[in-house]
C-alpha cells in the first residue's frame, strides 16, 4: 500500500464509528419496519394490497399528495419572488432580507401553527377586522379545513424554497442580463429568456426539498385541520399507537420512504443533486 492509500484508509477508520452508529440505530430499525410491513398480521403482501383495494388508504395518499403539491407550488411562487428580490437588492438590504427569511425558520412549528389559529379562527384577527370593516357579515371559514393547513404549511416552507433558489440565482452572471438589455430585449424578455432558464436548477432543487419535507408533515395539519384532514404521518401514528395495526402503519411508512427515494431519483436525473445540496460545489 502506498502512502496515499494508507492515509485514505485512516480516514475511513475515522468514519467507521459514525457508520456503525447509523447502521445500528437507523438502518436496522428501518429494515425492521420493512419486515413488519410484510409479516403483520400475517406474512404476505396483504398490507400492500390495501393500496389498491382500500378506499381509505387511497384517500389518505391522495389528500397528502394534493396538499403537498399545492403547498410546493405556492411556496415556489412566493419563494421565487423573494429570492429574485434578494438577488437584485443592494448588499446592505440583502442582509436584512436574509434575516427576515431565516427568522421564521428558528420559530417552533408548534408556535407558528397556534399563531395561525389565533389569526384565522372565527373570532380571530382576520375575521374580526374584516367584519369590523364591513367587508363580510359572517366569519369566513379560514381554519379547521385544508385552506388553513395550506396556509400554515406554505408559511413553514417558504424559507426552504427561498434558500436553494437564492443560491442558484447568485451564480447567474449579472453581465448576461446587461448584455441582453444591450441587445434590445425588454425587461420581461430578459427575465423570461435569460434569468428564468438560468435559475431553473434552483427551482427544481427547491421543489424537491419542499415536496419531500411536506410529505411528512404532522403537527401543522393536526392543529390547523380541525381533525377533518388526515395526512400520511398522522395516519401512521394512528395505526401504530392507537389501533395497533402495525402492518398497515409500517406499510405506509415504507411507502413514504419509497416516495421520497423515487422523488430524489427522478430529480437526480434532471439536475445534479450533489451540487444543489452543497457538496462538490
Amino acid at each position: 500500500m502506498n502512502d496515499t492509500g494508507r492515509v485514505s484508509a485512516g480516514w475511513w477508520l475515522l468514519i467507521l464509528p459514525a457508520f456503525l452508529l447509523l447502521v445500528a440505530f437507523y438502518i436496522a430499525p428501518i429494515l425492521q419496519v420493512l419486515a413488519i410491513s410484510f409479516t403483520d398480521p400475517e406474512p404476505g403482501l396483504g398490507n400492500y394490497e390495501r393500496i389498491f383495494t382500500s378506499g381509505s388508504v387511497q384517500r389518505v395518499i391522495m389528500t397528502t399528495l394534493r396538499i403537498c403539491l399545492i403547498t410546493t407550488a405556492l411556496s415556489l411562487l412566493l419563494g421565487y419572488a423573494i429570492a429574485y428580490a434578494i438577488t437584485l437588492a443592494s448588499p446592505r438590504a440583502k442582509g436584512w432580507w436574509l434575516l427576515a427569511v431565516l427568522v421564521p425558520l428558528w420559530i417552533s412549528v408548534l408556535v407558528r401553527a397556534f399563531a395561525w389559529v389565533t389569526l384565522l379562527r372565527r373570532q380571530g384577527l382576520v375575521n374580526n377586522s374584516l367584519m369590523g370593516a364591513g367587508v363580510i357579515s359572517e366569519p369566513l371559514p379560514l381554519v379547521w379545513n385544508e385552506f388553513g393547513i395550506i396556509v400554515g404549511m406554505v408559511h413553514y416552507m417558504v424559507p426552504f424554497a427561498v434558500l436553494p433558489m437564492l443560491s442558484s440565482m447568485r451564480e447567474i452572471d449579472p453581465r448576461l442580463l446587461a448584455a441582453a438589455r444591450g441587445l434590445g430585449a425588454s425587461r420581461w424578455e430578459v427575465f423570461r429568456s435569460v434569468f428564468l432558464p438560468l435559475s431553473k436548477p434552483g427551482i427544481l432543487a427547491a421543489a424537491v426539498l419542499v415536496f419531500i419535507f411536506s410529505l411528512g408533515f404532522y403537527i401543522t395539519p393536526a392543529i390547523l385541520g380541525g381533525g377533518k384532514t388526515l395526512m400520511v404521518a398522522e395516519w401512521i401514528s394512528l395505526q401504530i399507537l392507537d389501533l395497533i395495526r402495525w402492518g398497515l402503519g409500517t406499510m405506509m411508512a415504507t411507502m413514504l420512504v419509497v416516495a421520497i427515494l423515487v422523488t430524489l431519483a427522478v430529480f437526480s436525473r434532471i439536475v445534479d443533486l450533489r451540487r444543489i445540496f452543497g457538496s462538490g460545489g
Partner: protein
Amino acid sequence: MQSFQQDCVELALRKFRRGEVDRRTLLAGLAALGVGSFASDEAAAQAARKLVMVNWGGLANQGFGNFYGAPFAAANPGWTVEQDSTGPSAGRIRSMVESGRVTWDLCDSSASSSFLLGRQNLLEKINYDIVKKEDTLPVGFALEYGAAPYSFSSVLCYDSAKFPNGGPTGWKDFWDLQKFPGTRLLRRDATAMLDAAQMALGKDPKNLYPLDIRATVRKVADIRRNAVFWSSGSESEQFLRTGEAVMGIIWHTRATVLHGETNGRIKFIWPQALLQAGIMVIPKGNPGGEGAQRLLASMLHNPEPQVGLLTLLGNGPTNPRAAALVPQDLRWKNPTDPENAREQVVMDGEWWGANYQRANADYVDAITG
C-alpha cells in the same frame, strides 16, 4: 391522540399553577391514582421488590416520588412503587411485550385497549381472587384483562348563551342543526361518539349495544361539515371557550372547568352521558408478577384516595363506598355519584374491545372524507 389520563394530569398542573389547589392536595390527588398499602406478609418475605406504574403525565414522577414512595415503603417493607410517566399507549405496550423485556407492571389504559391487547395475548389476566370485584362498579369496570380504580364520562357540553330558549337535553338535540344551529365539537376517536350517535338515532339507551357501526358513522358524517374534532382535552376546552363550537361531546373534567370559569354560562348535562371505566392493565410477563395484581387490588379497595383524586382531577371514584365520602359541594361533578350515574349510560367496554379497530377506522375515514 391524547388519552383521558394524560389530560387529567395536565389539568391538575394548571389548577396548581393558578393556585386553585395547594401542593399537598396536588400530590395527594396524584398519588391517589396508585395509593394504597397492600398486605405485607408475602411482601416482607420477598426482599426488595419493585413495581413500576405507568401513567401519562410528567407530573406523576415528582408527585408520586415525594408523597407515595415514603409511606408505601413504610407500610410494605421491602416493596417500592416507581412511577413512569412515558405514556403506556397500546402500541408501546405491544412493542415492550414483544421485545421480551417488560419493565412495566401496571399501566393506565382503557377498556377497548385491554380487550385489543388481551386478545393478542399481550396482557396478564386480572386475578379476581386478589382483586375484589365488589370493590368496583358491577358492569364494565372489572374486565378480564383490566380493572378500573376511577371513572370518567363523555358529556354533552354547550354554551347556554347561544340558546336563550333552552338548551339541548340529549343527543337527538345535539344532532338537530335546525333547532340548535352552530358548530359541533366531537372527539376524533369513535368511542363515545358512535354511542351518542346511536342514541340520536333513537335507540333505547338501556339497550344500546351492539351499536350499528354503519348507521352511526353515517350519522356522524351527516354533521361533519358543521363540526370540528378534538384530539386533546385542552383543545376541546379551547374550542368551546373561544366560541369556535357551540356544543360538544367532551370529558366531564373539562366540562366542569368550563362551567366554573364561565359561571355556568357553559353548561353540561349528565343525562345520556357515557360513563367509562379508567382501566388499568398488566403487561404480559410483568417483572413484579403478582405484586401488580395486589397493587391494583389496593387501588380499588381504598375509597379515600379515590375521593382525593376526584377533588384534584375530577376522576370519579369506583369503589361503591366512595360516593358517600364525597363532600356535598363536589357531588355535582362526580360521574359515579348515584344521582348522576343513574342518568348516564355505561359504555360497553367489551363491545368496544371487539369492534374498536374497525369502528374507529370507519369513523376516522368518515370525518376526514
